[in-house]
C-alpha cells in the first residue's frame, strides 16, 4: 500500500530530513513510526500526503508513484489518505458536523449522503451527540476524535496520524489507539507516528524507527518485548 524506495529528502540549506529510507507497508497493516523529534517522522508523512516531494527515490502510495506525479494532482492523492494531526487542524468557526463533512463537500456528495456518512463517522468515534458543538467547546481528546472522524469520513484506504496522543493523558491515548485498531480491523492501512514508546510496545505491532533521517530499525510486532501474547 505504501512503498518507500531509497527515499532522500533534502531541504534547501542542505540538511537531509530523510536519508535513503526504504520500507513497504502491505494493505491492512498497522504500523508505528517512532524516533526522536527531528528524526524525520513528519517529513515521511508529508511525503505520503504529497505536501513535499522526495529529492531522490520513489514514494508509491496505492499504486501511484508520487515522485513522478505533478503537484496539481496532489489533492486527488490527499483524498485517498486520511490524515490526523497533532493539533487537530479543526476549523474553529465551523461546527463539528461541518468540520467532519469537509472531505465529502470537496468530493461533491449529496447532502443526504454527507449527513449519513458524517453521522456514521461521528458515531464511530463516539461523538454523535456533539455534532452541533463548536470545536473549542470540546476537550483535547474530543477534538482529536473529531479530527479522526474527518479523516475516516471519506473512507480512505490509508490513515496517517502524526503524534495523535501528543496532548492526551495515558488513558485517553490507550482509547485512541484502540480506535485505530478497530479501524485497522476493518481493512484500513494505518501508519502512526508517535514517540509514546510504552504504548507502542503494548500494542505489539510493527514499528519503524527513524534516527537522524535514516531508518534505524524495522521491528516486527511479534518481536516486541512486552508484546501481548
Amino acid at each position, binding site marked *: 500500500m505504501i512503498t518507500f524506495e531509497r527515499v532522500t529528502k533534502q*531541504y534547501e540549506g542542505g540538511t537531509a530530513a530523510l536519508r535513503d529510507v526504504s520500507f513497504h507497508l502491505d494493505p491492512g497493516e498497522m504500523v508505528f513510526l517512532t524516533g526522536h523529534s527531528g528524526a524525520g517522522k*513528519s517529513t515521511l508523512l*508529508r511525503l505520503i*500526503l504529497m*505536501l*513535499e*516531494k522526495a529529492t531522490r527515490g520513489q514514494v508509491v502510495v496505492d499504486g501511484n508513484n508520487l515522485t513522478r506525479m505533478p*503537484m*496539481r494532482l496532489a*489533492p*486527488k*492523492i*490527499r*483524498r485517498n489518505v486520511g*490524515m490526523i*494531526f*497533532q*493539533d487537530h*487542524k*479543526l*476549523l474553529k*468557526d465551523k461546527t463539528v458536523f461541518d468540520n467532519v463533512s*469537509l*472531505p465529502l*463537500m*470537496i*468530493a*461533491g*456528495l*449529496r*447532502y443526504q449522503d454527507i449527513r449519513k456518512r458524517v453521522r456514521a463517522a461521528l458515531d464511530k468515534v463516539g461523538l454523535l451527540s456533539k455534532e452541533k458543538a463548536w470545536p473549542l467547546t470540546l476537550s483535547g481528546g474530543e477534538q482529536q476524535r473529531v479530527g479522526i472522524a*474527518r479523516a475516516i469520513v*471519506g473512507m480512505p484506504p490509508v490513515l496517517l496520524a*502524526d503524534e495523535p496522543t501528543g496532548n492526551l493523558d495515558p488513558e485517553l491515548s490507550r482509547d485512541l489507539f484502540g480506535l485505530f485498531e478497530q479501524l485497522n480491523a476493518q481493512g484500513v492501512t494505518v501508519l502512526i507516528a508517535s514517540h509514546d514508546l510504552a504504548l507502542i510496545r503494548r500494542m505489539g505491532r510493527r514499528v519503524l524507527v527513524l534516527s537522524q533521517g535514516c531508518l534505524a530499525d524495522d521491528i516486527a510486532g511479534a518481536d516486541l518485548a512486552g508484546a501481548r501474547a
Partner: protein
Amino acid sequence: MKLERFRRRTRAWGRRQLFSLFSSLGTLMSHRAGTLMTVLVLGIAMALPVGLYVTVKNLRALDLKQEQWGTITVFLKTEADQDAAQALNDMINGRVGMTSDVISPAQGMAQFREASGFGQALDMFEENPLPWVVLVTPQPAEDVPLEAAVAQIEEWLLQQEDVDLVQVDFKWLQRLAGLLALGDALISVLTVFFSLAVVVVVSNTIRMDVANRSEEIQVLSLVGAGEGFIRQPFLYSGFWYGLLGATLALLLFNGCLFYLKRPLEGLLDAYGNSFTVHNLDGVGVLFVFFAGGFLGFIGAWVSVQRYLRMINTDGMLGRF
C-alpha cells in the same frame, strides 16, 4: 456507463458550486461593515463613468433634436423684394432635406422689437432698415451629420443672386460636437481607470479575506481540496462585491439624476427647448451589472491565484 459518470460528475460539480455560493455569501454577511465599505467605494467608482456616459448621451440627444441650432438665416440684399424672397423660398422648399420660411422686414422688425426691448430706439428709423430674410431649416437624412448638411446648404445659398449674407449658428454645433467627442474620450479613459480601480479594490479586499482565512484554506488543502474548490468561494465573493457595487452605483446615479432633473429641465426650458433628461436604458443597466460582476471576479481571481501559488510551492503547506 460513460454518460452516468459524466452526470455524476456534473452533479458533484454543481453541489460544490452551491457550497461555494453559500460559503461566499456567508463570508460577506459575517463582516457587514467591511463589506459595506468596499461596496461603497466600488459604487462611487462605478457611478462616475456611468454619470458621464449618460450626460454625454443626453447632450447627443440634444444635438439631434434641436435642429433649430442648425438653422440658417439668409439675409437678402436690400434691393431684393418680396418676389425675390418668395422665389428663393420656393427653390429651397423644392430641395430635398430642408424647409424654409420667409420673414418680411415688417415681421422681422416686430420680432426684434419684442425680443430686444429697443422699441423706442427703433421708432427713430424712418423706414424699416431690415432686408427680407429666409429662414432655412435643414432636415438631413438620419445618416447625414447635421454639420455636413449645413455646410453644403450654406455653400449653395451663397451662390444665389439675391443673397447678401448667410449666417449659421454653426460655431455652436461645432463646439457641441467637440465637447461630445471630448466626452466620449473622457468616458473611455474614465472607464479604463475606474475599471482598474474596481479590480484593485476587490482584489485587495479578497486578499484580506484570503489572509483571514488562510488557516481554513490550509486545512482544506490538507484534506484534499483542489485549487478550484478553494478558489471558488472567493471568486463568488468578488462577483458579489462587483454586483453590489454596480447596484449601488446605479442607485447613486439615479439619486443624483432625480435631484438634478428638475433644475436641469428648468434651465433648458428657459432656453426655449422642451427637453427631457434621458436615463440609462435597459441594456446600459445590464451592462453595468455585468461589468461590475466581471471586474469583481477578475479582482478576486488575481488575489486568490497569487495566494495559491504561494502555498503550493513545495513544502509551504501545512507545516506540522
